[in-house]
């Protein structure tokens, strides 16, 4: 930390000023003020501050991001999050994207970058994930770095672009599955570090594949239909005898990343149910690292898996649910993605909020719908608790309202199953 106002050589820095005493101090300069035009004195003083008091750091003992080498030091550029964190995010992004003031809540400092990026929808373009594992071209992060995003400026905003050679490492990291850490060959058992879809997640539809990340390279021959088992509960409960075993089209190591296994479930009947993936670390068929270290699979809800001892299966579930007849489900599956999109039913009251109807949260939707008169159709109520047929919301969604277009306006109409769930919620009393 340089001294802000250390004794300065004002004569040398800014030239002599009539009336200054020989002690060459700030006080002498101020004393001279009355004898010289004030703007010149001001200029000289600030010139002195600029030239002497606030120099740039020498960088001694720091890494490229300006952090002490003792915190980890320089990391060579590589297609790993650790390297990208230091060489890209820390070096170019966190002046803005850090702390509580990070734009759009997107914090890119070390503890937050992974969870804010990987698998997280972009707020500027909700059809894209910020980082879509395995898909650099459709990852919004890459588009922002390369300046091809549909919205906003190229990042770093106002700064020099990140060199293409550096972006290539970001692309490769994403193509490799966007794993959270570079681990190399480690001591201890093999563990699972990520899964997409995330464990315990609730999805609207069955994904085409399940991606499982490990902390090290896996022996590809141990990634197969005997070590990756998939079933579904049928009734929401596993282990009561009616579980249904499923047959993925394939199970294989990612061609781009030998730490990632991909389970292809694109051909499976996309039933609404709870699905369970088991990756075996015990029994006759187990997942092994290339060094022959067995999976330590026990999973307690957070990554990495394991109890520190080789052996044990990794078991995680996820659910596929359509829209349920509850406001929470309707909010998550209908209002938030289809109505409260930018420029429509979201935000505070104001001229740009259609019909003054904010549908951006369950509380807001309840307050703006249930028992509230329609602004568009006098005499109608948006949601009449217990009577879906009398609710203006239903007419707007079914396209039978006398005024205005069918909602969501400008987008595909909701399917009959979804509307039926909304009807059921209303008929059941439209409870909060």
């Amino acid at each position, binding site marked *: 930390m340089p001294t802000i106002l250390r004794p300065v050589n004002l004569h040398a820095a800014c030239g002599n000023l009539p009336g200054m005493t020989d002690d060459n101090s700030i006080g002498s300069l101020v004393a001279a*003020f009355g004898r010289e035009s004030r703007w010149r004195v001001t200029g000289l003083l600030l010139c002195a501050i600029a030239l002497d008091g606030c120099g740039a750091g020498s960088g001694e003992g720091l890494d490229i991001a300006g952090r002490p080498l003792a915190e980890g030091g320089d990391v060579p550029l590589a297609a790993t999050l650790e390297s990208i964190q230091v060489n890209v995010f820390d070096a170019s992004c966190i002046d803005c994207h850090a*702390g*509580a003031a990070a734009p759009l809540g997107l914090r890119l400092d070390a503890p937050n970058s992974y969870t804010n990026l990987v698998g997280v929808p972009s707020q500027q373009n909700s059809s894209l994930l910020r980082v879509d594992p395995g898909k650099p071209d459709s990852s919004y992060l890459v588009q922002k770095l390369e300046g091809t995003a549909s919205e906003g400026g190229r990042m770093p905003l106002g700064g020099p672009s990140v060199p293409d050679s550096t972006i290539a490492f970001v692309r490769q990291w994403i193509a490799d599955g966007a794993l959270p850490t570079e681990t190399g060959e480690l001591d201890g058992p093999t563990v699972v570090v990520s899964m997409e879809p995330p464990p315990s997640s609730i999805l609207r539809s069955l994904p085409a594949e399940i991606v499982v990340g490990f902390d090290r390279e896996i022996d590809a021959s141990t990634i197969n239909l005997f070590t990756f088992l998939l079933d579904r509960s049928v009734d929401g409960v596993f282990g009561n005898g009616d579980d249904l075993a499923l047959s993925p089209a394939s199970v294989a190591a990612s061609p781009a990343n030998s730490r990632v296994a991909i389970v292809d479930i694109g051909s499976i009947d996309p039933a609404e149910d709870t699905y369970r993936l088991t990756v075996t670390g015990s029994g006759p068929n187990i997942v092994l690292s290339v060094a022959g270290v067995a999976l330590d699979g026990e999973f307690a809800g957070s990554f990495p898996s394991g109890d520190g001892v080789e052996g044990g299966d990794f078991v995680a579930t996820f659910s596929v649910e359509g829209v349920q007849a509850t406001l929470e489900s309707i909010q998550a599956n209908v209002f938030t993605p289809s109505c409260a999109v*930018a420029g429509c039913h979201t935000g*505070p009251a*104001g001229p740009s909020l259609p019909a003054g109807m904010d549908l951006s949260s369950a509380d807001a939707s309840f307050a703006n719908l249930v028992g509230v008169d329609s602004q568009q159709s006098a005499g109608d109520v948006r949601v009449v608790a217990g009577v879906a047929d009398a609710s203006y919301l239903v007419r707007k969604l079914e396209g039978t309202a006398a005024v205005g277009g069918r909602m969501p306006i400008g987008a595909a109409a909701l399917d009959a199953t979804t509307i039926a769930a909304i009807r059921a919620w209303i008929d059941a009393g439209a409870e909060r």
Partner: protein
Amino acid sequence: MKDVARMMRLAGVIFGVFFSLQDVQAEPYIAVETGLRCGTCHVSPSGGGMRTAYGNIYSQTDFVAHKLGDHKPWTGEIGRYFAVGGDARWGWVRQDVPGQPAEESTDLEEFLAYVQIKPFPKYFSLYIDAKVLPDDAVVREQYAKLNLPGGEWWVRAGEFFLPYGFRLQDDEAFIRQVSGINYNTPDAGWELGYESGKWSAQLAVTRGTAGGPEVDSGKQYSARVSYVRQDWRVGGSFNFNDAAAGDRQMQNVFAGLNTGPLTWLAEVDYIIDDGAPTGRRKLWASLVEANWGYRQGHNLKLTFEWFDPDDEVDEDERNRVSLVWEYAPIHFMQGRVGYRRYDGIPQNAAQNREQFFAELHLWF
């Protein structure tokens, strides 16, 4: 104690300079130069965005090198209840980063459109500030504002830019970039304001997500007070963001001074960020800007900025020095040509870049 002492010392520098020179007064420099509050020329009391009728007239008369005849000036007012406006900026920039090929770009930087609806002109208005181009349209500000009887107090609710320090046009200035309060980060909530005589004050309570959706129950509290005289002004700001991801507290002092041909701006910001990877981090950012209006319609701007990203880490500080010539030949038009030099730690090339830029700014 070290921080308090440093804050007091920096504040002393600013206050000392401006008060001791007595005829001190402060884009924000125009407000300082004219001795007016931001809200005199801009619809938003905090400055920026749509111009008021006065702001429009000023920009066609005293601001430009050549006034065009005796035409009736454009005020933006369409009748009594409606007003419109806009800004468009095209820019060319060349960035020279050591060890890398020079990078040039020419873009439409922004086309902004403003609409104000005044159902009760004296008391109540609705305002929208939207970026129309480039890319998709985005609403930056949208709020309803109520002026209370007496005219001194007002309240607005909606989405708006927060009151904190000087509202510089340059979002990449350290004091705006590091504070995170700039033209990229409107926030939603409400704001109470007071404008009377020499005082201007605002208090805002907002989501604290910098334009993002609400993610926790914590709010952001922003306050700014300024004392405005004909040739000088001084003020301070405070901001506290109660965030689950880590609280952030910011405070600054700022001042403006008109010394005849030169108009000065200065601001020092001190930020305590509890959400840093290494725990609490304390940051400093400052700006001193001199504007020399050597002829009407011309302005030469010299800016020195300093940023310390971590008070506990030595030798990580950065500088930014800018020299910009601004020329407004006729109404609704301004050109800007500039050079900017960044000085930072040598191991980070981007922190030691040079920038040459030119901009054409049109407005109505």
